[in-house]
């Protein structure tokens, strides 16, 4: 077999090195045991990786499995390194890069409180309807809206609400799954 210089013949041909930071969503299946979240977070802080969003919840009760969804930024090399480092943790079953593996659905839930009177109040309600947000609490001077959508949808909604008397926001962080019939 001839090896051509500058051209790996490897089946493991790697992505070209890039220094541009990208945002990736990682889905991590872990044993739901004490300290598992601390291991994951400690890995990110200890090695200087970013966490933009992190959600965790048990997803299979009998098997004691939780799914952690992490949104992180880094160069492709750093993202691969993060996945490998996560894979080293004993309670980690699988790590999937949803951003790389193709199409995925990403959703976040936000609760948004606005307070105001008159025109502001009317505008807030109109916008909420336009975004298909639910009104989950109302007083004569305030609303709490519930909105589910992509993080970008929620950003947009929250930005608009700052004009309409935004008081505070609570967001769940990201839940994400790959499209199609197979699981991770």
């Amino acid at each position: 077999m001839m090896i051509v210089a500058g051209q790996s013949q490897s089946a493991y041909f790697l992505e070209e090195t890039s220094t541009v930071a990208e945002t990736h969503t990682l889905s991590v299946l872990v044993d739901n045991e004490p300290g598992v979240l601390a291991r994951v977070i400690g890995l990110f802080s200890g090695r200087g990786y970013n966490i933009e969003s992190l959600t965790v919840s048990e997803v299979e009760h009998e098997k004691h499995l939780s799914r952690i969804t992490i949104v992180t930024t880094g160069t492709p090399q750093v993202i691969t390194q993060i996945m490998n480092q996560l894979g080293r943790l004993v309670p980690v079953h699988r790590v999937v890069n949803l951003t790389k593996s193709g199409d995925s659905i990403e959703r976040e839930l936000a609760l948004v409180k606005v307070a105001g009177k008159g025109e502001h109040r009317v505008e807030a309600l109109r916008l909420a309807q336009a975004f298909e947000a639910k009104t989950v609490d109302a007083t004569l001077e305030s609303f709490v809206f519930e909105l589910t959508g992509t993080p970008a949808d929620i950003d947009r909604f929250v930005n608009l609400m700052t004009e309409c008397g935004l008081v505070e926001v609570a967001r769940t962080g990201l839940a994400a799954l790959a499209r199609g019939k197979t699981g991770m």
Partner: protein
Amino acid sequence: MTRQMTGAEMVIQAFIDQGVDTIFGYPGGAVLPIYDEIFQQDKINHILVRHEQGAGHAAEGYARSTGKPGVVLVTSGPGATNMVTALTDALMDSIPLVCITGQVPTHLIGTDGFQECDTVGITRPCTKHNWLVQKIEDLPKILHEAFRIATTGRPGPVVVDIPKNIQFQTGTYVNHKDQAQTQYKPRVKGDDTAIREAVALMAAAKKPVLYTGGGVVNAGPAASRLLREFVKLSGFPITSTLMGLGAYPASGPNWLGMLGMHGTYEANLAMHDCDVMVCIGARFDDRITGRIDAFSPNSKKIHIDIDPSSINKNVRADIPIVGDVAYVLEDMIKVWKQTQPVQDKAALNAWWQQIAVWKAKKCLAYRKHSDVIMPQYAIERLYQLTKGHDTYITTEVGQHQMWAAQYFGFEEPNRWMTSGGLGTMGYGLPAALGVQIAHPDALVIDIAGDASVQMNIQEMATAIQYEAPIKVFILNNQYMGMVRQWQQLLHGNRLSHSYTEAMPDFVKLAEAYGGVGIKAERPDELDDAINEMIAVKRPVIFDCRVANLANCFPMIPSGKAHNEMLLGDASDDEIDTAIGASGKMLV
């Protein structure tokens, strides 16, 4: 086998079932039930150290010289925190350790109880895995899983934190040896396609080099045998990291010496100029690569490692192979023999000629003196005079460590224990103790520095107690030599706090512990003194007075590339300007 027993008994039973014969430990309130069990049995030999850190390094020495896991038992709170350095050391150097820590009873956890600390929290980043045992039912599984995780895949330290009430509770013990309790299952066999690919690349190489590391030693004696076979088969030159010394014999015809910051000229230049680099069980650490953007610019890199996260971490691999070094080498040899590649003999000859030119530089040459012992000379003599013996070497950290690596020839794996990744001063003496306990009749020498040796000197008492005739060979230069060297190179020779103004009398110190003190000050008395040390069958501290201001060369200054080495004959001017501003930022 299923039996009812207390948690404390389970600990001992699990040790027995795992084939443990020796543990290193120190008692305290939170482990008294386990110590009570130790008292009532005679299968496990407990070595009482003088400081928990000493137990950790002794267990590391035991592990690295035997290939078996090292086992440690310490109490809660300060016992556990004293272990942190040794655990981190073992994690960095991939040494299998199983550390049992006592913990306050479960109902006191979280109350800031006496000698309570968050052991699993503190040791999480410095272990491969750790557990706080919360129920007696979990204990047998956790104990056996702890051994499995410590010893398989990339080895490392684990901690099992056992609250005192659980040590007293009774439960059902099952021997779970080698039964996986978690999904953890490292991949040992390398990918076939990648291996074929790698062999093809190697076969076509004109300027190949094998760069091997501690992973070869960790993969067991078979890996070293296979490595030697592969070197013979391919005819490639071979270098190694500090951690991998001995996997290929220093007397072997293809040996280039160690590479890296204090590696040989020929090894580093071969790394820089090669066209195919085969990294086997090493991890492209910054002490190896030097300036990363100038590291071996024109080579294709094959990287074999059991830990996927080592691959592409610092240096991009063209052909990564995840697997156990022994398995992968075996497959490579098979493929090589099957395919019978025709190598480019002319190119390889030219490469070896180039290497011969580099070798002719004699980068390890130094000026000898008739009135002062040069540290390099001391190591050379130590090597020559111990040659016929069953010798194991440990070191502390500093210049003496690098001189030991450069001037002592290692012929076999598991004979060389040094703190590579963490660079822990105080490692060598307790590590030597651990080695000696495992090999009672061997000649075990800690090549030490005068500063480092004082960091765990208390373990001399342990050596005396267990009649472990370790030899502590101190290259006494009155300085923290490596710090002084860096201050000379980087900080205008302002020797801030690197001189030891009050040095103990090491001969008297040895005698105070009940050992033997020997001192040598002149080259002409060195051989006799070393022979005397070898002959003494008791612990020895050897105070070898060496030239105070000798520097350790060759050296790749921080921030420089492999082909920008400083050699021993470098002029003083060159030394003062060797490191640029950005290099000073590095460690």
